[in-house]
């Protein structure tokens, strides 16, 4: 029996007599079998350790609210959670790609701007917006409202920011850390360089 035949016949790692015969004469397969069994044990251990992982309690509470709302005849009250962001931030990033901007590291680093911060930004004039450091993007179609705006931290290629007319200080590296203000539809409206 060749090594290939041996492995093709025992994907479940349970050797019969014939397979055991091969193992007696093939140290390489013995070693590989040992690793496979160790991996299976590791995966089983990992599964056991994560067995109790579950969605946080607030998910259940929010869904229950949605259920009651739906049963009351209205549309389910969609909890304002990260679903929107985690799905729309990549979409916003795609918009950036159209502009030639590559955004990354958005999902886990994305954060809502606090309401008070947004209110402050929304209520100030454009001159004050500049004070905040946000520079409107050419594609901007709206002034972010207090309720809808989200702030996303991204890495933007230096060349793209220069092309957009964003003044940059001399620095090393091809990418610059920046915050992007997203409008109601998830489209990028303004950018603020952090470095």
């Amino acid at each position, binding site marked *: 029996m060749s090594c290939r035949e041996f492995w093709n016949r025992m994907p479940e790692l349970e050797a019969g007599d014939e397979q055991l015969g091969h193992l007696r004469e093939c140290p390489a397969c013995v*070693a590989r079998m040992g*690793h496979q069994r160790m991996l299976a044990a*590791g995966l089983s*251990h990992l599964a056991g350790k*994560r067995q109790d992982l579950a969605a946080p309690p607030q998910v259940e509470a929010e869904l*229950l609210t949605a*259920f009651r709302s739906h049963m009351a005849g209205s549309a389910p009250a969609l909890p304002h959670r990260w679903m929107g962001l*985690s799905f729309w*931030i990549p979409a916003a990033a*795609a918009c950036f790609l159209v502009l030639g901007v590559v955004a990354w590291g958005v999902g886990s680093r994305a954060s809502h701007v606090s309401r008070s911060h947004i209110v402050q930004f929304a209520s100030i004039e454009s001159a004050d917006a500049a004070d905040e450091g946000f520079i409107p993007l050419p594609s901007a179609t709206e002034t972010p409202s207090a309720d809808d705006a989200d702030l996303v931290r991204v890495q933007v290629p230096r060349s793209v920011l220069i092309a957009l007319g964003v003044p940059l200080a001399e620095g090393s590296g091809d990418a610059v850390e920046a915050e992007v203000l997203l409008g109601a539809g998830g489209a990028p409206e303004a950018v603020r360089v952090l470095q």
Partner: protein
Amino acid sequence: MLKVNHLEKEMSIPETDDQLLLRMRRGDEEAFLTVYRKLQGPIYRFTLNMTGSATVAEDVTQEVFLALIRQDCGYDSARGTLAGYLFGIARKLVLRHLERSRLMAEQEIDAQEWGLPHASAHHDPIAELLHTEGIEALRRAVVSLPKRYREVVALCDLEEMDYAGAAALLGCPVGTVRSRLHRARSLLLEKLQQKRDPKLGVRAWRTAGSVI
């Protein structure tokens, strides 16, 4: 009918998916919570194992059950179990998320990889699979697998779904699940070996006996 339902509750006879859904449609919160509490954990963990993100796992879990509440999921008990159907919704959401954020996700995984504590040369990551660091390395290795291999590991190895169930969910033959799983495990071993000595990489592992 009411008497039967009452009796089932009293005797703790598990209700079928159809019975629970029927009660749910009538506005029975308890039925909804029964379904949710039974299935949210596996769906949450599947998403977590696929994306490596607790935030996305929460979002997907929520979206799956919102679809159930809205009755727009089109579940048909004749075509499979409710669990399988909800897993299917979760999988679609996960794949959509991974596709949309493919570039970012890859970079995040890369960042995680770089953040791994490098095992010293005398440590064997495979031999340490039952220890905390080994388990963590294994978890990260799973998340870094290509999608089609990651999902069979997440379903069959980590959620202990049988091959037939996974095949139904993935829409492929059982043999495909089996071969993907086999390939996935080989890839996991390669990744863990590379952690031990990045210079050796795949080539060294193959010369150590891999023939497939």
